[in-house]
């Protein structure tokens, strides 16, 4: 019988399905990459700071470099000089916002210290003109999230029996990463809802939407 009937050759099932699988995989991977673009979360990363009675996610985030009106270095002040976070960001323990230190506080030292540096002269010029530098927000949450620095400091630092006020860098590092290592401030933790929720879950934080979303 004629062996070359068209029906004899069969459809390449294997290839067809492998192809489909590959396309699907590509889509999934692409979505993942896109997601990464949106908020790159690297699990692991920096070693967790030493905060007793607390357990929190160690995800990190490599934020972009922001140019600030004054090239302020956290590494220098907090890291090398060892100034306590709460010395400048003193509002953090009393208000929902940590706040930028008032210019007067900067001038407290810089009327005498480092006056020759150009950045300091910039600051002094502004101070004498009575205007305050327009800092760029780095660590920000959406406007429908009402985060309170005060509550978190109380929980992890002030009411934490094993903690001393001078350990504040470790507590701040929970959400801001190790600021002692960076120069100009940089976003080092994802600060996404997943990040918050994981920590709230681990530390028995309030699980009530309206605590943060009002």
């Amino acid at each position, binding site marked *: 019988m004629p062996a070359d009937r068209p029906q004899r050759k069969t459809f390449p099932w294997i290839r067809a399905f492998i192809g489909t699988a590959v396309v699907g995989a590509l889509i999934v991977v692409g979505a993942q990459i896109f997601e990464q673009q*949106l*908020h790159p979360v690297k699990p692991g990363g920096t070693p967790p700071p030493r905060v007793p009675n607390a357990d929190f996610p160690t995800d990190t985030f490599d*934020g*972009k470099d*922001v*140019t600030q009106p004054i090239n302020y270095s956290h590494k220098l002040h907090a890291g090398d000089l060892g100034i306590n976070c709460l010395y400048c960001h003193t*509002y953090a323990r*009393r*208000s*929902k*916002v940590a*706040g*930028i*230190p*008032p*210019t*007067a506080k900067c001038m407290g030292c810089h009327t005498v210290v480092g006056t020759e540096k150009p950045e300091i002269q910039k600051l002094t010029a502004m*101070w004498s003109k*009575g205007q*305050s*530098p*327009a*800092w*760029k*927000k*780095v*660590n*920000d*949450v*959406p*406007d*429908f*999230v009402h985060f309170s620095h005060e509550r978190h400091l109380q929980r992890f630092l002030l009411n934490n029996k094993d903690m001393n006020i001078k350990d504040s860098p470790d507590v701040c590092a929970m959400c801001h990463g190790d600021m002692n290592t960076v120069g100009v401030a940089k*976003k080092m933790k994802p*600060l*996404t*809802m997943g990040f918050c929720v994981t920590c709230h879950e681990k530390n028995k934080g309030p699980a009530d939407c309206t605590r943060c979303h009002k």
Partner: protein
Amino acid sequence: MSKTKIDRRNFLKVLGLGSAGAALAGCDMPSYVTSDEGKENIYSYLAPEEYVIPGIGVWYASTCQQCPASCGVHGRVREGRVLKLEGNPDASVNKGKICQMGQAAIQGHFHPERIENPLINGQKATWDEALALVAKKSGGAAWLTGAMSGHQRVLIDAHRTAGGNARHYAVEVVNARPWEDASLATLGDANPNLHIDKARAVLAVGADFLGTWGNPVKSMRDYGNFRSAPRGVLMSIEPAMSMTGANSDIWVTARPGSEAAVLMGVGHILTTKHGVSVADMPSAALAFADMTPTKVLGLSDVKEEQLAKIADTLMANSPSLILANANHDTAKVAQVLNMMLGNVGQTLTPSAAITAEALLPVTGSSKDLVEFAMDAKAGKISSVFISGTNPVFLAPSKLDMAGALAKVGFKVAIADFHDETTTACDVVLPASSALEAWGTHVPVDGSDAGEVYIQQPLMENVHANTRGLGDILLAVAKGAGVDGLAEFEDYYGYLRTAVSALIGSDLEGDWNSILQKGKAVTAVNHSNFNAGGDVALGFSEPAAKAGTLTLITSARQGLFDGRHANLPWLQEAPDQISKAVWDSWAEIHPKTAAKIGAKDGDYITITSANGSITTRVFIYKGIHQDAISVPMGRGHTNYGLYAKNGVNPLSLLDASSGDRQTTELLNSGVSVTVKPTGDNRHLVRLMDVDSQHGRKLAATITADQFDRNQGGA
């Protein structure tokens, strides 16, 4: 003192504007869009005081300027912005409560249509130019203001005396003038101290004390106690339902202008049926005897049983209080009844004004408005300062206020918004809002608290180039060469010294506590009633005969006399009675509607001798058949984007007619003719139903099954 000033300035430095602005991004964006780094700016303080913490609101005391009552308020300040006003518990006038107009002050403060720069003939100018011009041309200027008190008034008087003592016209169309007049005539005290809370029964005759009469917040606070056990009974007699009427247990509608007759009818029944003696007031007794129920019926359509019911309630619940503002006659009858029923001394006590007369309030009247127009027409006024009032809008068209102003040589407006008047003025000086300015105010309540309320800025000027009223007055006064002011560089300095003089202290310790409380307490001199003696009661029959329509320009809390028409919050707050928003309407009785053939939402043209307005009808039973009521406040021609709708019933009024003694416009009926234009548009209201459809929503309990003394519990 200048030190405090610097600190305040620093404290008030506006910072972090981004935060509120960015809030507009709202929730529809995924978090990683709005929380992206480097998108928002954040400013730091320069050198804040230690109690200033971003993110935590601080409350500052000040004084509300939304209506002449001048309640004390607390303003919540955060990041240098005032966000919310609440009543000041230390202010004995309002004790921590304010009305919707006070709540809406914030919106006026942040309003996008504020005047930002001085204007000369409509052209932008600098302060120096403007003030120089004013100083040059405003010799012997008259003053046309709203109700005025405190040191602003002092400065104005100083300016007037310096320049030939021109007259100070104080214009308030919504006022208590008939009541004050009558009280002065009968009790010898223009502004007796009312104790609504102490009364067991209150009869209000055209005195809308829950709405706009006197200090509504004070009255409402007292009303709250009045209603709590033992519960008092509220009655009112009026042609069209007011807010007071809407809360009355017994509401009697009378033909416009016949309220005095009704009250006399009540007196008649009190004397005849209940045998209350009026021996010491023979002519009053005569008047009562003359006003028989049948006569009352003929005059006012009020039936005898209604009169009897009122009289019985007054007798049953003593002490009572009878308030009347319909017109002079009515108010007089009311006071006579108060004396007869022995309310004087119990619910009416002598007022106690502060000793510093110079600060006492100038209560406005519409009489001044009329007279200003007359004088201006007669060319008696060379130049005038206009502040806190809008004569062109308020004046009936017959007065031709625009024309009158044209006759005035030089006109200076001190205003924070453009309105019909500022456009007619040569120079406009931009005043900062009441929440940005210093000032002192003396409330118009007769209480013996002796309080002078401090108005202090709650934040830095929104528009840098505006100045507080006080500062402007000071500058003007200086320009006019008033002596003794040179030492003060600004009004704050003047005020501080003035207040220290007032309370006789150098203020070193007290000033902060004064600012905290928002008031300075000073000495008062107590007066006494010189009651007794005969009172002649007159009654002039209303011009409008039965069957003809009389226009009532009712005032409502909210837009008030029209000064708040540019505040969307108040435009959108439904009217208390008709629940209509954003537009004017005319209230008529169903029978009247049937007569003129109008149904809900029909446009009708209301025509008086002085012109005509066209608006939609709202048909309900809370109005007399011979009355048509158009609430005032809307119908601005030049008051910004939000005040375009509606009509202005004041324009129809007849300046010459009006109350016999006080010639007050507000309650003067003007007879009108009405006819539908034929077109109809649904009147925009909060709710189109007036009935509860049998649902138990606003449930009621009848007084007989209600335990009056337990307060229902």
